[in-house]
């Protein structure tokens, strides 16, 4: 037991009230950013340790975050949270700390990951810069390794801990007038095949050169996993809070029992997935996340429930947001989806997605880093970027093909083929 654990246990031995929760987090981030085929100023290591103290008093809750992890520092944070709680009005949505029995039900998994040394990380970059330069291209991106630990303690006996790591390599390669982006998400890069990854990025970047003018309009599109993730996450975030649905503030409010997607769409959460998601329990309160379906058989299966709202409605708590988001894929590789389109577009990723109309689920955004014309089942030519204004409900109804999932930090998402995707304007590039 280290000093912080001991101090926390000491505080919880004689808690200031019957509601004290202490969450301890530690992360060691090594982050190397690069541009113009060179490591730039955002080349950093940060060790961050914090404790969040939460204290409840008579139906009121105060909290305080500190990185003074001495026993006195933690006591001060607890005292501050206590003082805050006492000054607040009673909260009709107050929830006591989770019990030891509740906390114990989380489905743990023990991810294994190897060492992430400077030599390994800069070596990956050195190889990438070498290949990219050899190909006559430019590059930008980041390489990041993020081991972390989270521990949540409370005065009702809950003690939960999870250690994990996610690492990412984002690479944008550029010609003089175009770009293509890809990424590799991993624990420790032991599964990273630099040669294959770089060869694919270089080939697609070359294909992206000299984008041809293409008019906006409705197209059959193949959306890459990153594009699907960006749009889907915004849609879920705005619309899946169960309380907002019941209060009429969600696009799902007026769609109770209605079909909201094609029957081929299955979106769910699985806390013990192992490779996708950050924690198997809620970092604020130790409430275990649970496995559940969000969209199944074309309908809303379950929205997201907070502890309070789940208790009020008699529904299982999912977390707000849940542990992770998984869009069930198939065995079809991206190339197979592309080969199934006679005349359409492939969109690698989106950028700057924003809500346009809440109740109809309409979002706007731009394509970015790879838009290609598909002709006779093949990527034929890169084209200019587009702005879209698109209802996500229409998109979910118009999915004709679903491909193989790609795992990201928080999600696992497949590429999809969609009919009638609505591009409204184009860019000069």
């Amino acid at each position, binding site marked *: 037991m280290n000093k912080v654990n001991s101090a926390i246990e000491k505080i919880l031995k004689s808690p200031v009230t019957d509601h004290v929760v202490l969450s301890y987090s530690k992360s060691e981030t090594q*982050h*190397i*950013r690069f*541009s*113009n085929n*060179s*490591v*730039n*100023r*955002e*080349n*950093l*290591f*940060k*060790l961050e*340790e914090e404790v969040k103290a939460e204290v409840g008093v008579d139906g009121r*809750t*105060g*909290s*305080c*975050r*500190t990185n*003074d992890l001495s026993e006195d520092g933690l006591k001060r944070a607890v005292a*501050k*949270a206590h003082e*805050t709680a006492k*000054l*607040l009005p009673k*909260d009709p*949505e107050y929830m006591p700390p989770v019990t030891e029995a509740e906390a114990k039900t989380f489905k743990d998994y023990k991810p294994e990951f190897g060492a992430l040394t*400077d030599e390994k990380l*800069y070596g990956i970059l*050195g190889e990438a810069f070498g290949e990219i330069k050899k190909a006559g291209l*430019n590059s*930008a991106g*980041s390489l990041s390794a993020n081991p972390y630990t989270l521990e949540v303690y409370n005065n009702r006996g809950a003690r939960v801990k999870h250690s994990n790591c996610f690492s990412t390599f*984002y690479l*944008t390669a*550029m010609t003089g007038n175009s770009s293509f*982006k890809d990424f590799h998400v991993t624990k420790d890069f032991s599964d990273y095949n630099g040669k294959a990854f770089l060869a694919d990025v270089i080939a697609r970047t070359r294909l992206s050169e000299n984008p041809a003018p293409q008019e906006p309009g409705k197209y059959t599109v193949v959306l890459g996993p990153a594009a699907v993730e960006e749009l889907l996450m915004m849609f879920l975030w705005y619309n899946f809070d169960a309380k907002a649905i019941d209060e*009429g*503030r969600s696009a799902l409010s007026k769609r109770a029992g209605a079909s909201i997607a094609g029957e081929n769409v299955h979106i769910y959460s699985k806390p013990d997935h192992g490779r996708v998601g950050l924690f198997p329990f809620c970092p604020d309160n130790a409430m275990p996340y649970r496995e559940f379906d969000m969209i199944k058989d074309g309908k809303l299966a379950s929205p997201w429930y907070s502890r309070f709202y789940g208790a009020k409605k008699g529904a299982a708590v999912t977390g707000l947001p849940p542990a992770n988001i998984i869009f069930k894929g198939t065995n079809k590789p991206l190339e197979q989806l592309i080969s199934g389109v006679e005349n359409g577009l492939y969109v690698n990723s989106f*950028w*700057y*997605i*924003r809500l*346009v*109309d809440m*109740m109809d689920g*309409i979002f*706007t955004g*731009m394509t*970015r880093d790879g838009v290609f014309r598909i002709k006779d089942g093949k990527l034929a030519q890169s084209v200019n*970027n587009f*702005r879209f*204004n698109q209802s996500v409900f229409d998109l979910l109804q118009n999915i004709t093909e679903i491909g193989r999932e790609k795992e990201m930090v928080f999600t696992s998402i497949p590429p999809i083929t969609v009919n009638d995707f609505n591009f*409204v*304007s184009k*860019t*000069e590039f």
Partner: protein
Amino acid sequence: MDNLSEIVNYMQKKGARFADAREHLFREREIFTEDTRVEQIVEQDIDGTGVKVLYGNGWGYACTCAKDMDSLRAAADKALDLAKHADKCTDFKVELAAEPKHIAKFATKIKENPFDVKISEPVDALIEAGAIIRKVKDIIKANSNLVLRNMRKKYANTEGSRIETDIYTVLAEIDATARANGEVKSRHYLPSPMNAGYEYFRGTDLATNAARIAEQAREHCFAKSCESGPTTLILDPEHLSLTMHESVGHPSELDRVLGYEESCAGRSFATMDKLNNFKYGSELVNLVADNTLEGGLASIGYDDEGVECQKWHIVKDGILSGYGVCRELAHKMKMPRANGTTRATKYSDVPITRMPNLYLAPGKTPLTKEQLIADTESGIYIEGRGSFSIDQMRLNMQFGGDAFWEIKNGKITGMLKNVVYNAISYEFWRSCDAICGESEFRRAGFITCGKGDPMQAAQMTHGASPARFRNIMVRRAK
């Protein structure tokens, strides 16, 4: 400060070309309310020290929240190690622009320390606003947010600068959501966030504005849809704060122009070859960067690479005239000095070029908003911020707004809904044919501007008088 001096001297002895150390306290109290309950309170008291080192042509940065010298030395050693690795993986030739040595202190002028005020006081004010909003017919939700922030920094570098700053920031906002006539519409009140003390919050008059926004949210539900097509827009200062932020502020960050942000925030169409010759806007358009603006959110005295805050033009008489420039990139523009707009949000963040306070200078004649509307035969008047999106080169932009009114024959005839407009950024600014006078000038800022990788949220003030834009393509959102 002695610890920091020791650390930068230690780095110099170990062969660093340049080093700085920044002790950075970030203290924040954030209150969220939902209707008449406190939804969440986030209190933060986070401090630590970051050390930045230049070795050869490589940069390294490491930080620690520990205070003892051993931990500071370990962080400095780590930063130096990283810089040595970077030096082997870079084609950059780093030249730092000269900056005078500063031994200085700077503090926000405040009358009342926000953290000395009992938390129940602002909570009561926010809950009162929520109660007023909820009394209005068809209102289904009231939300509010108050941010009280203090950033205290000590800075030392190998050139002898020793700087202390103490900055206070206040932001308050309320929001009303109505459901009626098959629609759900929200309306927002955001008095400009300021670098100020708690006294600023006392003057924000949430209660009066709560009633107004609730009524307008409801009215919005019954508004008629706009027509699609080119039209004239009159935009209020809060709305313009967002358009200038996205279409002028970001594209004029020189690090973006030079590709440093390619992988995340993107690049810029406003390339250096366009400096002093590119028609960014009409001749009426003067966009001024000013980190000396009193109470401005980016007015911090000295930035996080020890450069004194300054004032300059981004666009002068319609022509692109300047950029936000850090010490590393100033030589690319043959500038003798950076302009003091490099900032980090917390101790664990690397300082990067951030948008300065940026405002659209008022028109030279004393034109009022009412006179401008009276002078407009047909168009749309837009207040506040709504949906916003722009491409990575900062050209194709689409904006909504918070509230829209139809203008017919020089008069406001009623509210509109479903308004979004689409433009190419420089064409938008070129279409500006009138800007109201100084008496109409209002500030409107941001405290959550995202940039960097890892992402950092920065703060800056904007400002404008209402202005008119011709022939802008408006679409019905649905």
